[in-house]
């Protein structure tokens, strides 16, 4: 019986993951990293990483969960918690509808409970296709519920960030999600539980200035843009061009804000190892 459910869950996730690609539709695609051409299929089979230079295309939330979690272990938390329009902002409901239709997501984050190499954990993945992965009250609420679920069940937590920052149309309520998620993580941490933060391209604005920077361990995908202010804002402020590599994952590691850079192909293995090193299921006591 259990096996049937597992197979069904695995198939469901695989179907959702299919829509999670950011690769252009052409048969031959040009890498924005090295400018070389590769057959689309080859890139897709390589977890959306350029086989020539290692450039990491962003990937969708379900796609990431699909290659990260043990087959059949995925169970989504709070799938039906959509954004509202708290400021009655003109045009916002239509924007949300379009984003939902285009991505098949209900919001910019998917939260799930699952297992990596047999170790149960709670995983949240932001998806930058949905209004730039911006932080709405729904994103903040889903993340907070996931943190609380992990805390209640004494499970380790992994959050993959990918966000342009605040959801403008929700104004101050978007800002308040920074305090809400950070406070929830403080409570979670007091229970002695593990939080792994994985920064992917791009992690900026209010997400960097809240939960993304608060991991016990912070990992990043190669080349990911990571910062508080966006590069354009900084360039306007200082009136000069930023040097090559500024605010990239490698730069952030050099400056002491990232523990390790992990290529996508090794993520599952590294996360599995870190979960293992923190005891069975991250349990401390």
């Amino acid at each position: 019986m259990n096996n049937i459910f597992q197979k069904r869950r695995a198939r469901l996730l695989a179907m959702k993951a299919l829509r999670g690609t950011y690769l252009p539709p052409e048969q031959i695609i040009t890498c924005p990293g090295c400018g070389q051409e590769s057959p689309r299929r080859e890139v897709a089979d390589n977890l959306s990483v350029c086989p020539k230079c290692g450039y990491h295309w962003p990937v969708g939330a379900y796609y990431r969960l699909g290659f990260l979690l043990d087959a059949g272990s995925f169970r989504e938390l709070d799938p039906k918690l959509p954004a509202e329009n708290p400021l009655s902002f003109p045009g916002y409901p239509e924007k949300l509808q379009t984003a939902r239709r285009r991505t098949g997501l209900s919001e910019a984050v998917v939260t799930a409970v699952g297992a990596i190499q047999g170790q149960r954990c709670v995983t949240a993945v932001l998806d930058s296709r949905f209004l730039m992965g911006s932080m709405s009250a729904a994103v903040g609420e889903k993340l907070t519920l996931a943190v609380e679920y992990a805390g209640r069940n004494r499970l380790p937590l992994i959050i993959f960030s990918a966000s342009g920052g605040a959801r403008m149309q929700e104004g101050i309520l978007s800002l308040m999600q920074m305090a809400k998620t950070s406070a929830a993580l403080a409570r979670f941490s007091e229970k002695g539980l593990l939080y792994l933060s994985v920064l992917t391209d791009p992690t900026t604005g209010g997400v960097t200035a809240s939960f993304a920077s608060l991991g016990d361990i912070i990992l990043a995908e190669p080349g990911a843009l990571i910062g508080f202010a966006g590069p354009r804002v900084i360039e306007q402020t200082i009136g000069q061009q930023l040097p090559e590599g500024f605010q990239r994952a490698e730069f952030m590691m050099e400056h002491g804000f990232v523990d390790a850079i992990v290529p996508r192909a090794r993520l599952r293995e590294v996360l599995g190892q870190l979960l293992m090193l923190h005891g069975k299921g991250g349990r401390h006591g």
Partner: protein
Amino acid sequence: MAEPLTAARRVSIARHPQRPNMEDYLQALFPDFFALRGDRVCGEDPAILGGIARFHGQSVTVIGTRKGKTLEENLKVNFGMPNPEGYRKALRLMQQAEKFRRPIITLIDTSGAYPGMQAEEHGQGEAIARNLYEMSRLTVPVIAVITGEGNSGGALALAVANRVLMLENAVYAILSPEGFSSILWKDASRHEEACGLMKMTAPELKAMGVIDDVIPEPAGGAHLAPEIAFREVERSLLLHLSQLNRQKGSALAADRYEKFRSMGQLSRREDV
């Protein structure tokens, strides 16, 4: 009764160069303020001023962002835009307040955290995140007063408080209306339109439950009669502080947590 001011009008009052600033409030309300400096890591950020003072018989920690009234003063304080060193100093002083059981009062007037190269290299995002995280679990009373502009994570990093108060013409928002309109519409000149939509004024935020109290200002703005503004801020601080002083430390932390936990709660729906 005069017509209520538009949001755009309030923004210009909030930014008035003669609007009372951190130093003015210190002089009027905390005359024996003793400044403490440095983040004990690598720097001292003049955009944030912090220290200890006596307030109505009680020792308090006061922390705030600084704005100057002249170009020269503003250059010294980076136009009130803090660097990570400033947020880390603020956190150091807050943790010291926790140790010595002193209430914390923050005075906020900033257009946001500084978007500079060095600020990024020194972890602006991490510094703000750390403040949100640590402030949420302090067990002493924390009162934040937004006196002018309170923009972005740069303001929130000092505003995870038991009571968030705003002067009547202060504004509190995700970012400046100019930044908002340039991100949303790629057109910074539509900032007045943005002001109307952003729900950034004290009465609007009070109605939404984001802030706790509106502190009245003299007609036309605090700069026209600063003494009135000082007395109103003092009265409001005293009122809220006396209420919070009666609460236990654990209750203060729990109430503060619940306050921010409830911001933007949503209901599950089946139709998406």
